[in-house]
């Protein structure tokens, strides 16, 4: 078992947990992910590593309760644990291999959306620790859904907060905020966008027009996370890539987001049924024409 040593609710349905997993914490790097499985019947759920502590042997994960297994994760408390916790998986962020002095010369922008703020945080923190300052745009639907604002503010140079409904900060999307900054004359050489696929798609559309190279972190459906099942395959440029072993980070200007979004919805009906089964008991087997 992998025990939970810290648990915190960050926003509605969004939770942070520190989990003891010394093998994962020993060599993991920003950009990589883990797969967690709550118990025997749980799904294998990929989650980006949000922070790590090599001395304590802990990994920080942030998740949103959306499916049957993540709903059940909400009930776990400090002292409980995950039956399985495997990683680090995927490739580390390219940033960790770049020359620090060169990075210091660059104007780097991170755009974080919703729960995607969590994986952005360790990258910004890592850069901050190397003495590289960067700007962050972080957005959510409304003020209540914003996470890690204070933590992010402590490690970045300029923080721009946006909400779709204008309940806090800039009213509009991260993409709109970037456009506004650009119009004011702010310039960037490099962008990293992590969040819902639809958000990454629109950030990439704009940065392509503006000529800013952009890296995205893809979060497609996965089973094993080691290259075995092919469920996470994406079209990047003219090549088929597996997000689990070739990514999760890719050149955002080459990713076919429309197809990736369709593939992500692949199990929607089945997942919906699993959630209904969890909430209402074993009554949903499909075929009724109402369960979607």
């Amino acid at each position: 078992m992998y025990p939970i040593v810290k648990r915190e609710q960050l926003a509605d349905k969004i939770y942070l947990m520190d989990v003891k997993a010394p093998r994962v914490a020993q060599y993991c790097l920003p950009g990589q992910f883990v797969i967690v499985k709550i118990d025997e019947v749980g799904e294998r759920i990929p989650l980006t590593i949000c922070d790590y502590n090599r001395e304590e042997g802990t990994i920080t994960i942030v998740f949103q309760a959306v499916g049957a297994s993540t709903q059940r994760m909400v009930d776990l408390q400090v002292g409980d644990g995950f039956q399985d916790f495997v990683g680090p998986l995927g490739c580390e962020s390219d940033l960790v291999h770049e020359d620090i002095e060169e990075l210091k010369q660059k104007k780097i922008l991170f755009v974080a959306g919703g729960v995607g703020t969590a994986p952005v945080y360790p990258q910004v923190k890592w850069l901050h620790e190397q003495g590289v300052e960067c700007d962050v745009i972080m957005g959510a639907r409304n003020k209540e859904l914003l996470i890690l604002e204070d933590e992010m503010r402590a490690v970045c140079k300029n923080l721009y907060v946006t909400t779709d409904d204008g309940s806090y900060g800039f009213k509009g999307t991260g993409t709109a905020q970037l456009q506004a900054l650009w119009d004011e004359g702010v310039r960037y050489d490099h962008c990293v966008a992590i969040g819902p696929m639809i958000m990454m798609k629109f950030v990439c559309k704009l940065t392509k027009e503006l000529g800013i190279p952009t890296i995205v972190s893809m979060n497609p459906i996965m089973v094993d996370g080691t290259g075995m099942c092919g469920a996470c395959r994406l079209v990047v440029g003219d090549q088929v890539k597996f997000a689990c072993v070739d990514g999760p980070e890719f050149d955002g200007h080459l990713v076919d987001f429309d197809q990736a979004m369709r593939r992500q919805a692949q199990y929607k009906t089945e997942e919906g049924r699993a959630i209904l089964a969890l909430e209402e008991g074993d009554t949903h087997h499909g075929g009724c024409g109402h369960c979607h």
Partner: protein
Amino acid sequence: MDVLKRVPVREQDAVVRSANFDEVCLGYNEEEAMAEAARCLGCKNAMCMKGCPVSIDIPGFIGQVKEGNFEEAYQIISKSSALPAVCGRVCPQETQCEGKCIRGIKGEPVSIGKLERFVADWAREHNIKPAKAEQMNGHKVAVIGSGPAGLTCAGDLAKMGYDVTIFEALHEAGGVLIYGIPEFRLPKSEVVAAEVENVKSLGVKIETNVVIGKSVTIDELMEKEGFEAVFIGSGAGLPKFMGIPGEQAMGVFSANEFLTRNNLMKAFLESYDTPIKCGKKVIVVGGGNVAMDAARTAKRLGAEVHIVYRRSEEELPARVEEVHHAKEEGVIFDLLQNPVELLVDEAGCVKGAKIIKMELGEPDASGRRRPVEIPGSEYEIEADVVIMSLGTSPNPLISSTTKGLDINKRQCIIADEANGATSKEGVFAGGDAVTGAATVILAMGAGKAAANGIHEYLSNK
């Protein structure tokens, strides 16, 4: 009783079983096993043993079954095989032991596989364990992967007294026996878990959830964790796709994904969270054992299933028994046909395939007649799920993170067949990671050879 004919083995009725995941073959009981064993001629120069990749003393164990000495029979088998309950179920006996049986010249060969299975099941039911090493020698060996190659290598080394730890990437031990081969062919908790427990009872430790090359590398295991030798039995897990239009559509899966969801994640059981999409009409592309497994799984989940294979029935690489069972269960075989395009609807879901008919031409490099497309023979078939079962290749995660480990152009680790030695000192390899996708028993043979290779290496160090 006609001595030329086998004692028939009881099976679940084809119609009944095509709707459940219980084991198809029910196996022999004691009387049936003894009667079948009595057919063995006990050849001095036993041809059957030459056909066995792990050289089980076949006439020896069958002789004991004949007399009703089942425990003795088990001890004879377990000297050579760590996984008899598995092998009795999934080995291609018709091309190995049974294919060489002298009884087979005039009549039907002795049912060696079914007898092996009987003995292993009997031993399990009577709680008989393989014999443990009397003394540990204190040398640490790491085994990467808990599939047939890894379990065999670990079991053999433990019997010699080594301190063995198996590292498994998934959350459950067994490799392809767990994620690949379905319940109805190889029961998981009853058979596979029990065989894994047997290996553990020899003193082998199994650490799950460790991805070698990511969680820790082989160099780190050897330099920092004190392992003096490493065996790589990581299998061939990377799925192949055809590269035809429409393959990224929703509803198109690799056989690995479909089977892993069903077998490892138990999606066929309502109480498990992992979903599976089976559809009403399924096309499985390919003709190997994995294709049969995927097809028969889809059938059990309620679909009409077509196997589309580019060669003819004679060339089907699957075991004869699997093809036979699939047909009995109502799987439709569309042979000498090949998809050229998958058809996709406006929502991005697969809705069918464009298929071209083939004919057999001259033999190719594999010795099988090459399938050639018949121009203008394309037709369309409806399907809401397409499963690609075109073979797999080794995962580069380990080879790309281990210094000095040579691979060939097919990503396979280069290893000496006799002792498993690789280009890197102290590192041995075997099974699908070396050969590319093959059979359980060949992987076990390689695991066995490598255990001896490691013993020799560490003894001379």
